[in-house]
């Protein structure tokens, strides 16, 4: 009897979409030989980590951030700066300490060359890695503290995060001597663990990213099933009621945003390992909204949906933009697809599954209770209603 139960559980575990997804992302390198495609597939996985971060924040905690690029970008810049300082061209500038080439260009003639104090600790790769996770999380906590302890709600959070990404983008571009501005950081060293270099085109890098992606998926899933995860959903369903139960709603929201930002920072790290590059265009409005699109299309309240959405949209985008006949219209097609999904499949492609199935039973599965989410937009609307 017991063993049979376990067998059922085991079967469920193996057939669960989570397991299948993880197996699926581990398989492709066995078939793909082209190093470019190994690299590109791992880039898709980086974006799916980013989508998981958005799904946690938007689908579960109800915070639609239009500035997630900031967290991604901060993570990427921290990591990239460390790898920049370790790259050959920083070590061969004729200074006794590693100095990025752009600091040489940007130092006005006649002034002494020095590494800005901000970057001094980044000479250690592990400091860069830790900073890439903590800086976005702390920044998010700060933003969250500012926003959620005020009476800011619903769409206004989106507008604030949108302004935030515009501001940070302007600052990064303007502070050229510190950040190399619009050109960004390139020519980076490879990520190095105990002497082993992660070549972006090699299988080890693919598996590094795939495993990080799998762990993020399991981690976010675990989080959504803890008490905190339940409270996120409850807040979405009825914020007032949760408040009257004595929960500090703002604290929970700050927590959700910070965790989400840290995951976005992790995605930034993986992006840099994959692409050896960081620039202001990875922390701009376009990318921030693109993340929302991936998640909206995939399914905002399904972690798997979001992850698959990111992979699918990026794959479609690449296929369209690289086919000769569609090179001019791919953005149009993408816009139409997005519009259709928002209008007719508000829960994204992930809801196609539940559309087919009419059973009302609420399971402990990935699906969020339907009633709870449905009432959310109305709720938000009533909060935003300009006047009484």
């Amino acid at each position, binding site marked *: 009897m017991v063993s049979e139960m376990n067998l059922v559980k085991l079967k469920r575990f193996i057939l669960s979409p989570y397991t299948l997804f993880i197996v699926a992302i581990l398989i492709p390198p066995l078939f793909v*030989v082209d190093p470019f495609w190994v690299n590109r*597939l791992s880039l898709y996985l980086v974006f799916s980590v980013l989508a998981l971060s958005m799904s946690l924040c938007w689908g579960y905690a109800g915070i639609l951030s239009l500035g997630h690029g900031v967290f991604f970008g901060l993570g990427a810049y921290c990591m990239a700066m460390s790898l920049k300082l370790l790259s050959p061209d920083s070590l061969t500038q004729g200074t006794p300490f590693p100095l990025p080439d752009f600091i040489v260009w940007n130092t006005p003639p006649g002034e002494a060359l020095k590494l800005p104090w901000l970057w001094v600790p980044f000479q250690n790769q592990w400091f860069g890695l830790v900073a890439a996770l903590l800086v976005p999380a702390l920044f998010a906590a700060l933003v969250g503290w500012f926003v959620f302890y005020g009476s800011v709600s619903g769409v206004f959070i989106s507008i604030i995060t949108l302004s935030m990404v515009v501001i940070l983008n302007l600052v990064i571009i303007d502070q050229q001597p510190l950040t190399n501005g619009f050109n960004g950081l*390139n020519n980076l060293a490879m990520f190095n663990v105990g002497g082993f270099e992660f070549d972006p085109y090699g299988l080890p890098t693919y598996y590094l990213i795939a495993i990080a992606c799998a762990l993020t998926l399991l981690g976010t899933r675990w989080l959504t099933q803890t008490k905190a995860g339940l409270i996120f959903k409850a807040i979405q369903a009825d914020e007032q009621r949760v408040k009257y139960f004595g929960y500090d709603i703002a604290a929970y929201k700050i927590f959700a945003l910070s965790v989400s930002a840290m995951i976005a920072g992790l995605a930034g790290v993986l992006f840099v390992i994959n692409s050896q590059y960081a620039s202001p265009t990875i922390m701009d409005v376009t990318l921030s909204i693109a993340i929302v699109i991936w998640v909206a299309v995939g399914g905002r309240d399904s972690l798997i949906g979001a992850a698959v959405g990111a992979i699918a949209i990026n794959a479609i985008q690449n296929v369209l933009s690289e086919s000769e006949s569609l090179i001019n219209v791919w953005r149009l097609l993408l816009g139409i697809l997005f519009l259709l999904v928002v209008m007719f499949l508000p829960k994204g492609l992930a809801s196609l599954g539940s559309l087919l199935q009419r059973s009302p039973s609420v399971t402990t599965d990935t699906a969020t209770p339907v009633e709870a989410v449905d009432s959310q937009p109305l709720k938000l609307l009533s909060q935003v209603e300009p006047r009484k």
Partner: protein
Amino acid sequence: MKRRVFVQNLAVSAALTAMAGCVRSATSSTSGATGSDIKVGILFSLTGGLEIVEKSMHDATLMAIEEINQAGGVLGRKLTPVIEDGASDPRIFAEKARKLLISDKVATVFGCYTGASVKAVLPVFTQQRGLLYYPTYAQGNECPSHAIYTGAVPNQQVSNFIPWIMKNLHAKRFFLVGSNYVFPREMAKVAKIMLKQNGGEFVADEYLPLNHTEWGPLVSKIKQLKPDAIFSNVVGTSTVAFYREFKNQGLKPEDIPICSTVTSEVETQAIGSEFVEGHYSSFPYFQSVSTPVNKDWVAKVKQKFGNNAVTHHAMECSYWQVHIFKQAAEKAQSLEPEKMRTASLGLEYEAPGGLVKIDPDNGNAWLTPRIGQCQADGQYKIVDEGKAPIKPLPYVAYGETTGNLYCTAKGLDTAKFKPQEQS
């Protein structure tokens, strides 16, 4: 429950199949590398904002490829362009460069316009030992080992310009303005060094973000500081707002001329010639160059892209560099990028703007400096012209001279290049 699991499995397996599809297309594209055709990559922005300039460069490249194919191709083989869209985003440029080199295995890549995009792709070319032909005027201060630069460098665009302005426009006090990224800032730095050498001065330097639209405050600043001339490195859509605001605030080219290293025929067309008339630009090529080759070429461009089409410096380079590539492949008798780069050095071609030559030392182009003044019809009257093509010196602002080269075929001589000692 069961049905749900089934449906979800279905979704996952669909995703898997889709991935498998990618895999198959990936492998098939690698096997396609060994055809009788020669694959060349074309990498400009076709979307995202910068296509306003880059589309014409893309077109000019395709035009040259078509001509070469009609004349029998390269080494008896036809050129097949692999077109990629850089989407005005350096990140995408880097990604597409990787695709072209690693996956498509192209013989060479023609592409890039902004300095940011070229900086993003260069490490890829070095790493993968590819070859990039880059057709845009640049800020210099670069010595790439896996690229040929066919646009102007500062000694062909600024070295002649600043003394000319000071002498002929009687300007001493300059206002420097540019977009906020590496190219304009580096150009401004070059200009400052040259102003100092020539006894001029600058009253201010300002950098506004790309795509900045509100130029009111900046132009009123110019109005209050009353410089003798403006040295402008404003790029892209911002030029429109800048020149229009300038005239709208009542400033005239006779009093304060805008002297630009960026505003070419294509920008002028968008700004409206009535706003640019009287201002100056410095380029090695203008549509009004009166060589027979150019007249021919302009006629062909108009026939192909309509009577409104204009030609400009970066577009001209995009066109003739493909012909240099053909010569290089034939000289090297090989499509191996590093051999082709070596073969490119020293090649000459009768381009629309006159004779051009790839410098044997630094892989930039010998070009003829020219200064043009915009006329009412949007064309530039050439008011000053070098006698012959001059040698490119990418480090001219840092003391490089024809007798003392910093960038040679061996790479950058860091013993000579001391950026900090310039004052």
